[in-house]
């Protein structure tokens, strides 16, 4: 299958997020690798995804799961070689699957040669590649992000006897983007991978690139200048490639990252995700409609990126204190489930392994405006292990079968990079790909169906959205429209059956065609359109005037 050659391919895509380490181990060392991932591309193609987003696979001391890069232009030896990556990339493209890789641009590992040089002496040519200070009081308007582990954004370097700036872990010194050499070097890194054929970058932690006294050091105009310059060079040399921003910010603060269509192509909609969980728990559409109402328009070439879960904690930074407390009480009754300002759990456990709720949340993910991202394992309802530290509980080996190690690796179990899930509910013998593929009504087969239905129309990726506000607040209903094509989406957020009357007078005369079963529903007339819905049920209707 050839690649979708349209320039806006990312608007129609379904993205699958995976860490190469977690997916499949081809050489029996207990760690997933590119050859293993390559061997599972058919599975991903069958799932119906269009792009793979790979978490960092570069050489790294792995103190932050690879987000502490020690060499930008190589592959961590445990995952394979550059040749292995090239083969994987080629195989993915042959299947019509694009590849998105990480560009951890804000910081490096303290083991990176650049930092080692920088700290070696105050006169080193790379001294200014990082942010140094004789005091730890500069930029004190900047918040500390990893509250559970860090007390300051400055760390003392005993070698050069000065402080260095870090927004994340202290072993991740921030690069100094005021230095033109750093900006040039980062473009060289991008070029290296783009020339190899990589389709897109997810830029990590973009709000923090530049620091200025008297500010909170987030979202600064100088940061946008850096990003716009990268985008300009990307478009000039590699048209059709894409940049995805990771900026955990409020929608209004995110908007500038799209610029006039000249900065990022896509950005994660962080505030929406917790509100989807909140709306489900509250059985009330209000949190969802409210945040989408606050979401500004973005340039037509741009796109929001939506997700239910990812490799990090379910972040609660972009919610109010009232909402955060509610989320903790609702989804993380045990303190062990909480990390920083978030909840470190996977989708299925968050939803009490309730198939109806899992389907509803995926239904919303696939139908709200944006490009959906599926986190590896969530398509089969994998569980988590909150006994593992940090966010490792949601980064356990993929469960392929009921064999030893869940079919992930032939290594002795104790050599796996992380223990595979083994509990009775979510363990690999109960939840695995092989078993689900054999069952017609399994979650994975349902996921394949919904990806297929989403891709049957461009309306979900590119269409406008208009919310209907039926008096029943448990119902989230909206119309997606692209040209003459219109789709009505109705979600019952409640655990009980609901009746809802929809004002569809604008569509009078249309018949409704349910998109999964393709059955015809009554024609829209003058009266409110009455639907009855089962618990957590959702409908996608194509509106057709025949």
């Amino acid at each position, binding site marked *: 299958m050839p690649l979708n050659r349209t320039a806006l391919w990312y608007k129609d895509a379904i993205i699958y997020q995976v860490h190469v380490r977690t997916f499949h181990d081809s050489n029996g060392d207990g760690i997933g690798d590119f050859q293993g991932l390559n061997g599972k591309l058919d599975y991903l193609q069958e799932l119906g995804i269009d792009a793979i987003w790979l978490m960092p696979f570069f050489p790294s001391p792995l103190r932050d799961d690879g987000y502490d890069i020690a060499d930008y232009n190589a592959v961590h030896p445990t995952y394979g070689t550059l040749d292995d990556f090239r083969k994987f990339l080629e195989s993915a493209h042959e299947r019509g699957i694009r590849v998105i890789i990480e560009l951890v641009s804000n910081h490096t590992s303290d083991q990176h040669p650049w930092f080692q040089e920088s700290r070696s002496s105050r006169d080193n040519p790379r001294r200014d590649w990082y942010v140094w200070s004789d005091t730890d009081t500069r930029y004190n308007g900047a918040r500390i992000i990893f509250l559970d582990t860090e007390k300051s954004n400055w760390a003392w370097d005993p070698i050069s006897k000065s402080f260095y700036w870090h927004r994340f872990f202290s072993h991740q010194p921030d690069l100094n983007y005021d230095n033109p050499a750093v900006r040039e070097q980062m473009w060289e890194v991008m070029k290296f991978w783009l020339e190899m054929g990589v389709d897109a970058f997810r830029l990590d932690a973009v709000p923090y690139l530049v620091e200025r006294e008297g500010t909170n050091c987030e979202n600064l105009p100088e940061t946008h200048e850096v990003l716009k310059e990268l985008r300009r060079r990307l478009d000039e040399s590699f048209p059709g490639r894409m940049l995805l921003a990771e900026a955990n910010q409020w929608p209004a603060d995110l908007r500038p990252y799209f610029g006039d269509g000249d900065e990022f192509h896509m950005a994660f909609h962080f505030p929406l995700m917790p509100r989807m969980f*909140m709306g489900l728990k*509250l*059985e*009330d*559409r*209000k*949190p969802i409609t409210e945040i989408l109402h606050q979401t500004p328009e973005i340039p037509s070439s741009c796109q929001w990126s939506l997700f239910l879960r990812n490799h990090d904690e379910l972040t609660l930074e972009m919610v*109010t204190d*009232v*909402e955060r407390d*509610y989320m903790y009480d609702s989804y993380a009754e045990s303190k062990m489930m909480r990390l920083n300002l978030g909840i470190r759990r996977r989708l299925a456990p968050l939803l009490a392994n309730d198939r109806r709720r899992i389907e509803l949340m995926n239904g919303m993910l696939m139908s709200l405006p944006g490009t959906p991202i599926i986190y590896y394992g969530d398509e089969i309802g994998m569980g988590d292990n909150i006994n593992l530290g940090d966010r490792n509980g949601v980064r356990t080996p993929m469960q392929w079968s009921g064999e030893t190690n869940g079919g992930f690796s032939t290594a002795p179990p104790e050599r796996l990079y992380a223990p595979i899930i083994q509990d009775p509910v979510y363990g690999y013998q109960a939840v695995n790909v092989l078993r689900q593929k054999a069952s017609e009504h399994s979650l994975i087969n349902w996921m394949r169906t919904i990806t297929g239905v989403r891709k049957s129309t461009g309306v979900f990726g590119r269409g406008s959205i208009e919310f209907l506000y*039926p*008096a*029943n*607040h*448990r119902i989230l209903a909206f119309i997606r429209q692209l040209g003459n094509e219109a789709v009505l989406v109705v979600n019952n957020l*409640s655990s*009980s059956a*609901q*009746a809802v*009357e929809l004002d569809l007078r604008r569509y009078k005369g249309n018949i409704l065609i349910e998109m999964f079963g393709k059955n015809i529903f009554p024609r829209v007339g003058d009266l409110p359109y009455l639907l009855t819905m089962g618990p957590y049920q959702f409908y996608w209707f194509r509106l057709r005037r025949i």
Partner: protein
Amino acid sequence: MAEESFLTDDFLRQLMNVGEVDILVGLPTHNNAKTVGSIVHTIQTGILRGFPRARAVIINADGGSRDGTPELVTGVSIDDARPASNLYALRTLHSISTKYANSSQPSNKVAFRTILAAAELLRAKACVVMSPESANVEPEWLSKLLGPIYHDDFDLVTPTYSRHKFEGLLITNLLYPMTRALYGVRIRETYSPEFGFSGRLGTQFLGQNIWTDATNGTGVELRFTLAAITGKFRICQSFLGEKIQIERRSADLVPALRQTVGALFSALEPDFPVWSVVAGSEPTLTNEADHGVLLEPLRINRKRLREMFSTGVAELESVFQSILSPATLAELQQIARLRDEDFRYPTELWVRTVYEFAASYQKSVISRDHIIQALAPLFRGKALTFLTENRNASAEEIENNIEGLCREFERLKPYLLQIWKSSE
């Protein structure tokens, strides 16, 4: 279960959209446009402050307002107050309205029945009725009236207020002492426009056979309190602070007597098996202060009260002959002849008067409504005595006097039982 014809289809549709709730706020209205907007806003604020996670609805039962009251109720948005109050609603906060009558005559009974029916259909856990005529409703009232139900499993929360020492004389001189003596429970405000109740109490009361009985229709709030007592539901009181009515209706004594004393007298007959075996009384758990007394000077037309008492005793002699014992009537006629400065309605005589009225009401010696009307001039005499005796009294002295009256009601309860049984 609500009757099909009782709730309109439109109201049912609105209830269907609201779905199950944790908290229901009932707001009976009739031409309250001047105040209802701010009261709804206060209610919303109270819900968000006290119960931010609860599923809540405001149910407006309107008696046919022509001043746009229902539209004001449904039009108030909590978002109007958010910038100032820093409040945030997790959920949709519903306000729905229904008109239960097209006439200009509001009916507390129909309004309350509507609210109870809504509470049952929505499976509300904790409910509160708020008055649109209280000028100083505070958001904290919601927590105080709902909290004991929502958090502590009480079934009825009646308010206590800081009142002026001469305000609420009907309560302090008749309703409180009489219900306390008869039912054995010390509830200060047995009928209040604001009170909280549990869904189970609401359902139990909704199922009682009082809604179609015209003679029992008035004083539904008091009947509700008595139903909670006789049903052995868990009751407590919450102190709300000072209460200010939007307007005083000092001339409306007879309707007030109908609503309160009439309701109490009506309840005595079916409740006889309960109250006839009660001796003494028990205090009711009260959150914060038991009540408060304000002592500012107040202008009262004592001469007018005196005239109305004496005129009433003279003009209604034939009516009183049917209601009262000869001895009681003779004593009344005797005090009616006293000089103004010597006038005093003795406590024992007042208690006997009330008890004889209650027994006569049960016997229906004359029209029950006439019996209630005949009590009005006598109550004015008692009120005048209370005003005179407590003109310079401190809060503590007043409370002691009320306590003394209550004990007198309790002491003379056997007399009521005696005349009640003799009538049987």
